[in-house]
């Protein structure tokens, strides 16, 4: 986040309010990203009806949760690899 050219010049209440809006905006951006990916995975080429069926709803929920689990797994394992000094051919 850019610092408006000098943090001490910014009203701290205002800065706090803007940070809150940024956090909300980041949340929205993630929802867009997950919806994009999980739509392809769960709806894909299937026919659409007047509502999403139960299977598709469950798939969307699972997709979000498993994507987050994957991110956590990848991060944890990568950390271990770095600590072991064995991160592939990275120098």
């Amino acid at each position, binding site marked *: 986040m850019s610092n*408006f050219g000098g943090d001490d010049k910014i009203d701290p209440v205002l800065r706090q309010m*803007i940070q809150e809006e940024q956090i909300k905006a980041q*949340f*929205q951006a993630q929802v867009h990203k997950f*919806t994009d990916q*999980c739509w392809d995975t769960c709806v894909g080429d299937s026919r659409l009806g007047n509502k999403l069926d139960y299977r598709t709803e469950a798939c*969307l929920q699972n997709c979000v949760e498993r994507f987050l689990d994957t991110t956590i797994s990848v991060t944890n394992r990568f950390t271990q690899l770095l600590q072991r000094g064995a991160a592939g051919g990275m120098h």
Partner: protein
Amino acid sequence: MDFSSPPAGGSGVNRDELMDQVKSQIAIANAQELLQKMSDKCFKKCVTKPGTSLDNSEQKCIAMCMDRYMDAWNIVSRTYSTRLQRERGKI
């Protein structure tokens, strides 16, 4: 999101006005993202053989696709929010 330029009006702009501007810029960006995603997905789904105009069935398909995409978006949003709260509860 670029906050690096000072708000118009400089010191004359009060905090509430600025926050209204920030919130509304974020809301507009959010809506634009949603529109772009829906156009992409629903074009792919509904317009498989582009003709010289969108026929009735294509238009109905697009409308249904939009509704389902927004349903999916809401499901993803709730799932992600719940998961974040669960993770926060673990700290």
